[in-house]
């Protein structure tokens, strides 16, 4: 590989590290965008089947070209900037929504060593960059200067920060066990333990000792991405589409891409933090990216399943769940895990 790239590297000279990094970034973003496009297709298809209808089936065989048709349609729609808006901020909103949801992928490990930036503060970076997502929503809603976006933004901001707390405390528990902020290291730690030695790797992953945190993280992930049943933020039947009401064409498409990219992100993080990342569930099968792909797809499927199953939560119920249920539960579990690690019964030494 190295020898093969030598002539190309010499062609670019000093700029080569930057060019090579860019190539790797494209190699992450391109499959991600295909995954995002087809997630919209599978969402419609799966929810369709759950409601005993067949979903999109006209564009291409089995409707497989539907996402492409949707993309082209959005590209050909007028980009409107309504006259009451704050123009600069209005354009900035969708950009700030999509940038963090892509940038977070810089530290995601796909297989052992298969990570763009193997930084020791990976989890901290994820926490920081996903917090920025709320700015895209706030700026978009405020800049729209219209009533529905304004209401949607207030709800979105409050909801996203509330569930960020629960997520944060859940991550603290993972940290205590893995003793590292490096995402690759977090996966490797899950591959050690009595069960892993017995060839039953899936029992030594974090989901088992941290089961309540796993559930909290998953539900908070749905709330963070403003997906059903926590979609009061953009609930079509009450506030139209929340902060996205005034957006059209590609500006709207960016919010849409960001939302689905975030779904993939939360799913892959759940897989990495709690479900052993690229590790194989049983000893006799090889580790690898395929396991991460399977686990992530399962978690994403859960997102869709939840949307098809549950009615929308009322807003005060959402806030109560975040502040009065998840927060005490996670705080308590931080205590439990800390005592567990301190006690002679610790399984992580």
């Amino acid at each position, binding site marked *: 590989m190295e020898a093969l790239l030598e002539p190309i590297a010499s062609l670019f000279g000093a700029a080569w590290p930057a060019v090579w990094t860019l190539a790797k970034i494209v190699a992450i973003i391109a499959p991600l965008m295909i995954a995002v496009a087809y997630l919209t297709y599978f969402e419609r298809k799966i929810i369709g089947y759950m409601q005993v209808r067949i979903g999109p089936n006209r564009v291409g065989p089995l409707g497989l070209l539907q996402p492409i048709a949707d993309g082209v349609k959005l590209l*050909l729609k007028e980009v409107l900037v309504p*006259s009451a808006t704050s123009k600069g901020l209005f354009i900035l909103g969708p950009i700030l929504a999509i*940038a963090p949801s892509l940038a977070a992928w810089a530290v995601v490990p796909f297989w052992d060593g298969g990570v763009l930036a193997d930084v020791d503060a990976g989890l901290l970076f994820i926490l920081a960059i996903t917090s920025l997502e709320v700015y895209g929503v706030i700026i978009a809603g405020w800049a*729209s200067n219209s*009533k529905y*976006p304004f209401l949607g933004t207030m709800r979105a901001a409050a909801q996203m*920060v509330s569930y960020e707390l629960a997520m944060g405390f859940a991550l603290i528990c993972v940290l205590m066990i893995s003793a590292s902020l490096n995402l690759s290291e977090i996966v490797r730690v899950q591959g050690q333990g009595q069960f892993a030695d017995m060839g039953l790797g899936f029992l030594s992953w974090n989901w088992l000792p941290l089961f309540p945190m796993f559930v909290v993280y998953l539900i908070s992930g749905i709330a963070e991405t403003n997906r059903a049943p926590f979609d009061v933020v953009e609930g079509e039947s009450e506030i139209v589409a929340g902060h996205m009401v005034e957006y059209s064409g590609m500006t709207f*498409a960016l919010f849409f891409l960001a939302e689905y990219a975030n779904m993939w992100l939360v799913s892959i993080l759940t897989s990495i933090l709690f479900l052993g990342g690229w590790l194989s569930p049983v000893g006799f099968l090889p580790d690898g990216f395929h396991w991460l792909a399977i686990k992530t797809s399962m978690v994403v499927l859960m997102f869709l399943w939840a949307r098809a199953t549950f009615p929308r939560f009322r807003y005060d119920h959402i*806030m109560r769940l975040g502040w009065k249920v998840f927060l005490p539960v996670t705080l308590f579990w*931080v205590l439990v895990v800390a005592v567990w690690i301190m006690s002679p019964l610790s399984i992580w030494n």
Partner: protein
Amino acid sequence: MLENYFPVLVFILVGLAFGVAPIVMGRLIAPHRPDSEKLSPFECGFEPFEDARMKFDVRYYLLAILFIIFDLEIAFLLPWATILREIAGTESLRLFGFFEMFVFLGILVIGYIWVWKKGALDWE
């Protein structure tokens, strides 16, 4: 060490470019025929009235303040959580390293109970 973060920086820039490019493309490719009706704020069919940036519930402020307190707490917990296993393995640090954080957390919990009793977390 620091060069590990170079790809992260590039990725953030690519992410921003990924946001700008479609908007520019949409502006260039798609038709652009604005008129005053099209450009008025959306309001379910009728003429927009009053300022959209209206007064809103004070609880949102309260929530933002509470969020900052708890988020800072998480920031303080991060380094402690990272070395907890090391603390557990060091005899001289064991009790101190363990209980110090729980004094810290205890103060937070007292505050949390107070906030709850005051009704700051109620949304009815």
